[in-house]
């Protein structure tokens, strides 16, 4: 560990060259923009910039692309909070509470919470990566399909906490999410399910058009059908509101620490990235937080949990990449391709053979995280003006953004029409007070559950004993039981107290 600190210090010395700092700055600012633009996320951003970096020094190149990756986690929350359109999939949970805060007239507070949480979550992830990255990556490898299946199952047992006041409409939303998730090529045998003969549906419903339709387009409909006065314009935005009070900071700190740790851990897992981290942390936080039942109505904790988790996951995803040369998420998979293009051999030897590459990169994370925080805070007064724009202008602008965003995902008009269809559909869901969160959660988590369960059965040709093969599995099973039974016990205890 002390050796790592020495190497990190040395990394800092070499990161402070003109090229590296400029690369870090450019990557951060570009990442915040790309993150804030709906439809293009970290993956597209890195893919587009990758060819430009082939002539660069590999260290400078990866500093830039890595900065872009974690900066998108910051940027995604801006449009989620202000316009209710998640800029990137990890920001979906942020929109649930963030936009409610904007409607309450405190968008600045929501943004400050997001940026502060992103910074703290990111810092936790980076510190853990520095101190014990390779040990963590080794633990991550122990998680095979059965362990991951149980982890997702554990997360899904908490879905009940997202259902809202009306259990029936909550379950309806969950069922819809499950149904959407079954469209496309099945994950085990390659058979096509519910694709209606459309090649665009053969790989399933794409996530980004679905999200943009559900959040952005349904809102356009709402804006233009709203009768009466223009409520948004009446909100008086005071810059003073962007600062958190001391009690609020004290409320947020434990949330940020918890979810920073959780996010790092999820980021290290094979195949899970910022999106799964933010979803998992949002439901767990909702479950254990004292005011968890207020999540979704506009509480700052609801923004803090997913934002600290997704930034931490972005840092955590680098642990398996740098230690073993295996990607922890699709964006790091792309960076892996970049390493080869720059003439480096990703793999277990990278740490030992190329310390002059690895340690400046890790040092640049600290620097980039601070740059992102400063740029984001500086942008708050500017971006908040979007809130005082009247609906008459906002509606067509959001509509245009939605169309462009849906198109750029796969360069396909099908996605645009699909986005509009989903938007109309979810407008009616909103009118009938069916919540969006359980639908999205089921849509994200259930395909993962299906995949891991079927992989586990693939391994043993259907023998379920693989789900109790080791201590990790048993831990999860015990937790699942505790999670399912605890509400009953709490209820009993409360009832007993009342009678006595």
């Amino acid at each position, binding site marked *: 560990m002390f050796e790592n600190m020495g190497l990190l210090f040395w990394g800092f010395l070499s990161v402070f060259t003109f090229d590296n700092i400029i690369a870090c700055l450019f990557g951060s600012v570009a990442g915040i923009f790309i993150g804030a633009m709906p439809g293009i996320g970290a*993956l597209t951003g890195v893919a587009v910039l990758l060819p430009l970096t082939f002539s660069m020094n590999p260290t400078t190149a990866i500093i830039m692309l890595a900065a872009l990756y974690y900066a998108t986690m910051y940027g995604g929350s801006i449009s989620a909070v202000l316009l209710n359109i998640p800029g990137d999939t990890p920001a979906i949970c942020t929109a649930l509470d963030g936009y409610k805060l904007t409607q309450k007239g405190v968008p600045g507070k929501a943004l400050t919470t997001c940026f502060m949480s992103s910074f703290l979550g990111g810092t936790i992830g980076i510190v853990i990566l520095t101190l014990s990255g390779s040990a963590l990556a080794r633990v991550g490898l122990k998680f095979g399909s059965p362990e991951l299946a149980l982890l997702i199952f554990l997360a899904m047992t908490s879905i009940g906490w997202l259902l809202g006041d009306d259990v029936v409409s909550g379950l309806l939303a969950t069922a819809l999410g499950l149904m959407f998730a079954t469209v496309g090529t099945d994950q085990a045998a390659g058979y096509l399910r519910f694709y209606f003969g459309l090649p665009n549906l053969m790989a399933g419903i794409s996530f980004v058009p679905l999200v943009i339709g559900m959040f952005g387009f349904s809102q356009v409909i709402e804006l233009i059908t709203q009768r009466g006065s223009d409520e948004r314009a009446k909100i008086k935005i005071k810059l003073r509101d962007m600062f958190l009070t001391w009690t609020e900071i004290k409320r947020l700190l434990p949330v940020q620490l918890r979810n920073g740790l959780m996010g790092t851990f999820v980021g290290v897992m094979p195949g899970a990235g910022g999106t799964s981290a933010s979803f998992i942390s949002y439901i767990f936080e909702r479950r254990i937080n004292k005011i968890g039942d207020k999540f979704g109505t506009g509480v700052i904790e609801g923004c803090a949990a997913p934002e600290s988790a997704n930034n931490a996951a972005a840092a955590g995803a680098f642990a398996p990449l740098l230690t073993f040369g295996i990607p922890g998420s699709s964006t790091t998979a792309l960076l892996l391709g970049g390493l080869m293009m720059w003439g480096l051999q990703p793999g277990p030897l990278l740490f030992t053979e190329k310390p002059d590459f690895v340690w400046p990169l890790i040092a640049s994370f600290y620097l980039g995280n601070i740059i992102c925080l400063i740029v984001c805070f500086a942008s708050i007064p500017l971006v908040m003006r979007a809130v005082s724009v009247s609906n008459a202008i906002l509606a067509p602008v959001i509509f245009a953004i939605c169309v462009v965003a849906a198109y750029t995902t796969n360069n396909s008009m099908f996605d645009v029409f699909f986005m509009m269809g989903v938007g109309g559909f979810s407008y009616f869901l909103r009118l009938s007070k069916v919540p969006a969160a359980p639908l999205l959660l089921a849509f994200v988590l259930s395909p993962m559950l299906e995949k891991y369960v079927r992989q586990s059965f693939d391994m043993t040709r259907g023998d379920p004993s693989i789900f109790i093969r080791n201590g990790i599995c048993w831990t999860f099973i015990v937790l699942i039981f505790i999670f399912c039974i605890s509400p009953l016990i709490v209820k009993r205890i409360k009832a007993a107290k009342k009678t006595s």
Partner: protein
Amino acid sequence: MKRIVSVSLCLLIGVFTVFAGGGSEGTSAVAAQSGPWQPAKDIEYVIPASPGGGSDLWARACANAITANKLSPVTWVPMNRAGGASAVGYNYMLSQKGNDYVLLAGHSGAMVSSYVAGWQHKFEEMVEMLCILAFDDVTLCTLATGPYKDIRSLLKAAQDKPGTLRFGSDQRLNSSQYAYEMLKKYAKADLNYVQYDSSGDAATALLGGHVDVAILNPAECIGQVNAGSFIPVATFATERLGGKFADAPTFAEIGYPQIVLREFRGISGTVGMSDGARQYYAELGKKLLETNEFKQYLSTNNLTPTYMGLGEAQKYATAEMEKIAALFKEVTQK
């Protein structure tokens, strides 16, 4: 008043959006040219996959080498049209029938899917393989700390204890499953096929010891092989591969000459493309192979360069697919 403006603006965007999908460029009349065919406008190079995959790297490497060496008077614009395990990209090619300015990054994996994964059209109804430029060979890897250090002990274990060894692989109904079925049919090795989203995920599972053997392209495992954590135990190519893979025998060497699989990559065009354009692109492929940029790309990704030109490439691809489809048919009929 504002409301009316707003609503009408939204409607306007809606109308534009709807008609944007309907209009298609069609094939513009090319001015009468003298001499051999030359492209007159930018070329759309369709990647039937998301950014970051093997086909994406391939297409961008082609485009970069073409630009750097001025092989073409116009720009090749790589365009990701992902979805449906390549089906979306191939169907797009079908919709562009006869267009001389749309090409596709061809890979044998997608062609296998078009035959066996329930697609409406076979690949040759949607594209023409204009030239094949490289083989992307496939190897079997085991874990260095695991019990199987060579192919014979692995096959013996699979023959002795059928249904216990785990074979980590990417999606079914693809070339990887063909390799698996060949092992089962010819080597009587009965393994458990474990499907991952990608070969990268299969490599991760092998590293964690969750599978016993994984099927990987050299580029997907070279880092682990160099570090000594993976052993390449066999190659599906017809000859041994070079470098760190030189110790891995071919299946013919250990007595199974039928077990051969070579994935290939090349440039595909639309069906009904003009003869001049077809010849132009096939020739351009040959020049591409000679550029330093492309050579560099092939060697870092352990691709084996080859050249099959107009007619020959399409014939080879179709013959390979017929062979693969026949084995799949045999398996599903059982």
